[in-house]
């Protein structure tokens, strides 16, 4: 197991480095020059200014050298300096990471819980009206653009009913501490987390449903019935547990991508997360910052993949640590 983890980590690091290199070129292929963007923002652009900027950012150096310097930085855990924000990339990401993790993990938990719940119901009543209703319900949140769902939520819960705040991470200026602060943050969290969670819910609902139907037909379920166990116990202990395995897999894949995938939710709810940071960096061609976010996202995905693998192996006693 230890060697398994070590091997995975090693492979992960290699993949990460490859990703850094590829990203480096990919991003630079996109038209647009950060110096020109910044010059544009400054409301003036003359030769000297642009040249100065380019020198300042090291953009005048040949690409391979830039790459070398960047990779060297990454290897020493230095993600570089953001041209535009004039701050170390690591610091900028660090400021945003907690909010993103809070949002995505909550959304993730919501989607998993609801998805499994609905999936279970749908499977339980497969072929009935309830089943169809659940499928349609789940697909509504899947097929509706997130910003639309988000806006509807805001209109309903913030504007009309005034229950929940419509934006931000906490009440600005309230200076709450301790429990009150936690409640405040939670209130702000509900809507974005729900919006994001409901989107991913559809997949889990469908996955759980299919998987439950599958497992339900297996022999050991009949054994359990022959024992005289109640239906609830059978569903929970025998069917659901086995049915969850593929859901766990899928969840592992999602948990990583969620992190960078929350751009729209973060934007609509003004959630100070990494998604927006990345998006702004992309629009500004803030190369180092963008690369930094990509690297962090990739690392997260790899870490989450590893964690799911481990969890999976723990949950399913049949799995060996084959490498």
């Amino acid at each position: 197991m230890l060697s398994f983890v070590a091997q995975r980590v090693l492979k992960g690091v290699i993949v990460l480095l490859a990703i850094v290199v590829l990203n480096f070129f990919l991003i630079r292929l996109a038209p647009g020059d950060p110096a020109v963007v910044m010059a544009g923002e400054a409301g003036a652009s003359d030769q000297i200014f642009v040249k100065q900027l380019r020198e300042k950012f090291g953009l005048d150096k040949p690409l391979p050298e830039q790459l070398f310097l960047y990779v060297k930085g990454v290897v020493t855990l230095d993600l570089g300096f953001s041209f535009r924000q004039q701050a170390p990339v690591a610091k900028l990401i660090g400021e945003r990471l907690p909010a993103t993790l809070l949002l995505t993990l909550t959304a993730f938990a919501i989607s998993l819980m609801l998805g499994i719940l609905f999936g279970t119901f749908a499977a339980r009543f497969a072929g009935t009206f309830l089943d169809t209703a659940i499928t349609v319900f789940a697909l509504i949140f899947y097929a509706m653009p997130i910003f639309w769902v988000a806006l509807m939520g805001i209109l309903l819960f913030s504007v009309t009913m005034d229950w929940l705040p419509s934006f931000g991470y906490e009440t600005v200026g309230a200076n709450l501490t301790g429990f009150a602060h936690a409640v405040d943050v939670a209130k702000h969290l509900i809507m974005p987390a729900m919006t994001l969670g409901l989107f991913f819910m559809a997949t889990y609902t469908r996955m759980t449903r299919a998987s439950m139907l599958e497992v339900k037909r297996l022999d050991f379920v009949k054994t359990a019935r022959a024992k005289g166990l109640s239906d609830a116990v059978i569903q929970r202990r025998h069917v659901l547990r086995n049915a969850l395995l593929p859901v766990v897999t899928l969840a592992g894949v999602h948990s990583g991508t969620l992190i960078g995938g929350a751009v729209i939710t973060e934007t609509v709810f003004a959630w100070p997360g990494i998604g927006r940071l990345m998006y702004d960096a992309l629009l500004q061609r803030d190369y180092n910052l963008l690369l930094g976010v990509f690297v962090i996202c990739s690392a997260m995905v790899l870490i989450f993949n590893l964690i799911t693998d481990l969890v999976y192996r723990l949950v399913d006693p049949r799995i060996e640590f084959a490498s």
Partner: protein
Amino acid sequence: MKQFWKSMLRSPSGVIGLIILVLAISVALFGPMLFPNSPWRMVQRPFLPPFTLSAVPLGTDALGRDVFAGMIFGARVSLLVGLVSTLVALIVGVPIGAMAGYFGGRVDDALMRFTEFFQTIPSFALAIVLVAILQPSIYSIVTSIALVSWPPVARLVRGEVLSLRTREYVQAAVVTGQSNTWIIMREILPNALSPVIVLASLMVATAILLESSLSFLGLGDPNLISWGYMVGAGRTVIRQAWWITVFPGVAILISVLGLNLIGEGLNDALNPRLSREGR
């Protein structure tokens, strides 16, 4: 083939899905012929609510353009983007996944690392970068969406193949001296199909919405109208003019629903056990 249609038509979800898809596709194909006016044309006063003028039954948008015409023309692009990019994603993802799963070892390692590269970058950002690099157009959009959506397909297929290749009927095919291609195509892939179908029918929705997000950022094909574009464009005025967003939104929803129903029906129809026995 006859058998296939028969069983497809037997499942109610398949029938409903098929009806929806056929309707949507015929709108996409023939609608623009019946509606020769460009959907970009400003025909009425802006923000005209729906059902007030029969000439513009679904009202007008912020510039006074006919929402109904937009829906008709948008069907073409949206369905094209959704279906083609999903198809391309399948064409890329399925063979990669199949080869990784079937050959294992180094091939698997290399292919999966390659997949990871596309998988670990947030797909939305990657799509933006790709479209920006390739210049926005319907082709580059489809390409980019396909490029960011194939990794899950590959992973899924790989997983399935990994387990299927140890099945005895696969080994039976091996011992009769059949080629690897044949074995993958005939013995393995058909049995790995059903989760792929479920995934693919969900992917169509993602693709349509991704196109919408892209056009919201100004990276859509500016010369073609799409449902996603309409939803994005109507978003900011949703408070004044719900209809601009809601109608194309519902169109997307119904198409996605239809495709998922087809997916379900297809799944049953392709599964000989279900198709002939019922359930």
